[in-house]
């Protein structure tokens, strides 16, 4: 399957779950319409015999200034496919489910997202300080409204 066939296959397979985004510039980029079904969706694409998305390239949070987004980049080692999907999260209800049961390597990515964005991860099991110092108490540094205390923003040219 090439890029377009892969996108079509996924849209046919999960018509109520996925929506193809125009903003994706390389591999197919989907919007996950039902964040509650995240774990089931991940398990479905991993176990699908045509797809076998067994490899989580990366997972990260994004602060767009209006809400959070969570992005997953998945790949298949066996079938050589790759695509991404994401879903928005409101600031006041920033909570996702852990996908460690599907891809064990999600553990640290989720821990980092929790620590740097303050996005809570349900069923994670080890949400403790990680990249930041153990006694960190200055909030979530990757949020857009956070600047380091000694940071001076230069005027735009």
């Amino acid at each position, binding site marked *: 399957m090439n890029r377009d066939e892969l996108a079509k296959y996924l849209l046919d397979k999960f018509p109520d779950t996925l929506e193809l985004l125009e*903003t*994706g*510039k*390389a*591999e197919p*980029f989907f919007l996950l319409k039902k964040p509650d079904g995240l774990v089931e969706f991940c398990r479905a694409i991993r176990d699908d015999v045509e797809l076998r998305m*067994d*490899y*989580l*390239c*990366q997972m*990260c949070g*994004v*602060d*767009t200034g209006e809400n959070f*987004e969570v*992005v997953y*980049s998945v*790949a298949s*080692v066996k079938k*050589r496919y*790759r695509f*991404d999907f994401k879903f928005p999260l409101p600031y006041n209800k920033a909570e996702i489910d852990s996908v460690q049961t599907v*891809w*064990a*390597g999600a*553990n*640290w990515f989720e821990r980092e997202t929790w620590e740097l964005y303050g996005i809570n991860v349900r069923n994670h099991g080890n949400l403790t*300080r*990680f*990249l*930041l*110092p153990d006694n960190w108490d200055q909030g979530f*540094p*990757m949020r857009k409204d956070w600047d380091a205390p000694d940071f001076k*923003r230069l005027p735009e040219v």
Partner: protein
Amino acid sequence: MADLRTEEFVVNMGPHHPSTHGVCRFVLTMDGEVIVKAEPVIGYLHRALEKICENRTYAQCIPVLDRFEYCTSMSCNQVFALATEKLAGIEVPERAEYLRVIMLELNRIASHLIWLGTTSLDLGALTPFLYAFREREDILDLFEMTCGQRLTYNYIRVGGVAKDIPAEFIPKAKKFLSTFDHKVDDYERVLTENPIFIARNQNIGVMSQELAIAYGVSGPNLRATGIKFDLRRDDPYSIYDRFKFDIPTGQNGDCYDRYRVRMQEMRESAKIVRQAIEQLPEGEISAKFNPLVFKAPAGELYSRIENSRGEMGVYIQSRDKEKKPLRVKLRGSSYNHLQAMPHVLVGHKIADVVAVMASLDIIMPDVDR
């Protein structure tokens, strides 16, 4: 003897342990001499590169990302340049692509030579370290005459490369490549059949294929488990589909297989550089790209390349008519390797931590970013 009290105890290894290649701490729970549980503690090198990139223009990100994984700075430049080019639809001239491949593969050899030197040093063999750094010096000389830098090159830019190679580059590179395979033979003569080296490496740190894939292990570590997967062939970027090269694999996924795979990879990289020099066309070295006014269109993508340690990727999200990226996520392969490492350590002795960490080729700037 019956009422002798035994209990597990905790050993703190690092952060300033010379074999941890950066600053990584291991909290090891030991039962006598055997590791029961290992927990890596990271963050000592966290420089917030992702946050820094959000406050810089696309062109300004490239020198920052040199520091992301400083053993292969060329790859860091390449992965970001590639992502930005895909985002904005910039066509890279032919000659620039070839120069990139030459530099990337030379950099891969240099990085593997650091790995070879430090690994053998960690295992108590001093000689290969001196050999490896002698050859690495030749590569660094080539880089220095091209871009003036020996560690953080800032050479591959968005749209092409910074400078053309000087006239002396090709003869010097050819001279280096003509002897390099014999040099690899020399390293192998010291180590490959050395009984001490084999005893320290064979059946140590065995990684199964399932564990490797589940934890996102990539590069030589994945190939050592027997999976023939290389992004240069399986998700081709740049012009890698024009070169002929083999993808070495192992069988057992132990430290010794990882060693064999990396040694073979150096020969394969040299093969690619030879072909690239042979085919190198004349022409422009950069597309039209003005870093001062460049604005990316709205979009997002995750782009990945094969660097010497495995999959290096960058996720960029951009807003329309903005000079700066909204989000840059860096994905280093050592992050996943270190995450998988506790699972291969269980049941080993404490001295094997050093061997496993060295053979996985973990470096900490890649993990902490």
